[in-house]
């Protein structure tokens, strides 16, 4: 009984800590980063007045959105209109549950739910996010949101397949769906994104084992890197489409659809859509990090200490958590960078890319890995 209670309390602490202390502030500061980076890319300055470097801007924005009148237009379908923002927001938060965002603190693994379906849960839940958009588009009872909703649906169909297919090679290589296990595999065999992996170097204690270095250079791993890199590219691009980011932000395409699916929304309901979009971005980055960049793993640092309860063990745990979110932040920067570089794809181009190219590439990739893998087994 106490065992169960402790489990519940620890999970609750991890969930609340993750969502309220890390993800939500990260979302608001991603918005800030988006504005600053886009400004700098366009030779502007961006918000720099509220607080030092404008760092209080997200807080001011949140306050403004909270205090605004919560207006519901008369012509909407009220129930679904109110449901939609929650539907857009919740899935990305739920997907976070299975992502290992740190090694361990006080002997407790830093993942809310260490379940063996892992990545399947992420795909299943994050694809629910489209319901928020479709519901918003439909219930708004207005043409632009409706077009946004329709676009979102077809975009979804085009990209879910390649998104899931592109990471099948990873599960073939790692032999598991559990994200923590995949991270463990990457710690043992090297990040999946890197073609070579040198195991012999460690900073604690400082040692270089030349024999191990030479042994660790494996020609098959270099060959295997090719399909993995392809799957990384396909997965990342599909993730852009999944999170409705430019160049695939067709559901909200400001220039064509006014505001897209959230045209009729304002105040906190609009903010929930916004939050959901950026949270989806963070979750997407977190999944990419977990699958390809070794999640919380820092090269040359030990992954565990003999006694994780000492101060050093806790510091190491904190370093791992920080490393994870630094990696996520770098990938978020990439997301923003791409957004302010590329023009929007036309509607048919997007579907064409999804159906004609990515699914085929991902499928061929699976076979490629299947052919290479038998030679890898020792």
């Amino acid at each position: 009984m106490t065992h169960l209670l402790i489990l519940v309390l620890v999970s609750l602490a991890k969930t609340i800590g993750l969502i309220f202390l890390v993800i939500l502030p990260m979302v608001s500061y991603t918005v800030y980063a988006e504005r600053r980076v886009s400004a700098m890319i366009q030779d502007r300055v961006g918000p720099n007045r509220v607080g030092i470097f404008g760092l209080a801007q997200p807080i001011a924005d949140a306050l403004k959105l909270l205090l605004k009148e919560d207006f519901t237009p008369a012509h909407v379908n009220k129930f679904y209109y109110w449901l939609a923002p929650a539907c857009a927001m919740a899935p990305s938060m739920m997907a976070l549950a299975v992502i290992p965002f740190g090694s361990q603190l006080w002997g407790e693994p830093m993942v809310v739910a260490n379940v063996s379906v892992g990545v399947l849960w992420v795909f299943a839940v994050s694809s629910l996010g489209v319901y928020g958009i479709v519901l918003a588009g439909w219930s708004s009872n207005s043409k632009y949101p409706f077009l946004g909703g329709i676009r979102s649906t077809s975009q979804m169909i085009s990209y879910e397949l390649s998104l899931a297919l592109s990471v099948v090679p990873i599960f073939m290589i790692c032999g598991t769906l559990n994200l923590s296990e995949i991270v463990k595999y990457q710690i043992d065999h090297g990040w999946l994104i890197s073609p070579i992996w040198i195991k012999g170097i460690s900073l604690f204690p400082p040692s270089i084992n030349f024999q191990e270095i030479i042994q660790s250079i494996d020609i098959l791993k270099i060959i295997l890197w090719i399909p993995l890199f392809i799957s990384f590219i396909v997965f990342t691009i599909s993730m852009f489409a999944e999170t409705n980011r430019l160049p695939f932000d067709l559901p909200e395409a400001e220039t064509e659809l006014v505001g897209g699916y959230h045209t009729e929304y304002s105040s906190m309901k609009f903010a929930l859509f916004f939050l959901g979009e950026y949270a989806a971005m963070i979750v997407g980055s977190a999944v990419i990090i977990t699958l390809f960049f070794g999640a919380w793993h820092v090269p040359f640092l030990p992954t565990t200490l003999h006694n994780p309860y000492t101060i050093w063990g806790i510091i190491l745990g904190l370093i791992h958590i920080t490393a994870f979110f630094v990696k996520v932040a770098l990938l978020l920067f990439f997301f923003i960078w791409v957004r302010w570089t590329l023009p929007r794809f036309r509607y048919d181009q997007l579907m064409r890319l999804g159906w004609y190219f990515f699914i085929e590439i991902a499928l061929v990739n699976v076979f490629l890995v299947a052919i290479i893998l038998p030679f890898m087994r020792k």
Partner: protein
Amino acid sequence: MAYTVARPKLTFAEKAYLPAILTGLGITIRHFVNILSGRKKVTMQYPEEKWDKQLPAHYRGAPTLVTDEHGRERCVACQLCEFICPPRAITIHPGEIPEKDRWRKVEKFPQEFEIDMIRCIYCGLCEEVCPEQAIFLLKDYAITGLTRREMVHDKQKLYELGGVMTGLVNKWNDKK
């Protein structure tokens, strides 16, 4: 007659998007780094930094009245500026200069001289039309106020803004 625009023949690299995307990413990151490192500066932080020093001599700011080196107010209340003013921003109430005054022969002076800065369009016609070199558009551009009344510049305010201007033609001097 309708005619067909020839579609450009794309190379494989162009069709594959990726090289062009990478080039674009290179361009944007260059702009980002240049602005971030401060190597390139485009924006002026307005209230802290101003471009007052770089304003050209012919800049048309707020219209003002000036006095000359003899301390004489140059306006003779001829009302030409009032008549030419396109938005009718200027209101002048002329008065007579008393008998004993040194500048008796000028005859008239403005008792009240008001320019409504909400109406003013900074066209400079008042300056152009003035036969007495009395009204000038100087370089004040940040004219603000909290009420409409505050935005109407009266005579005192206009002379305050204009100040003393030397080197003008003094046609009312005693000798002449």
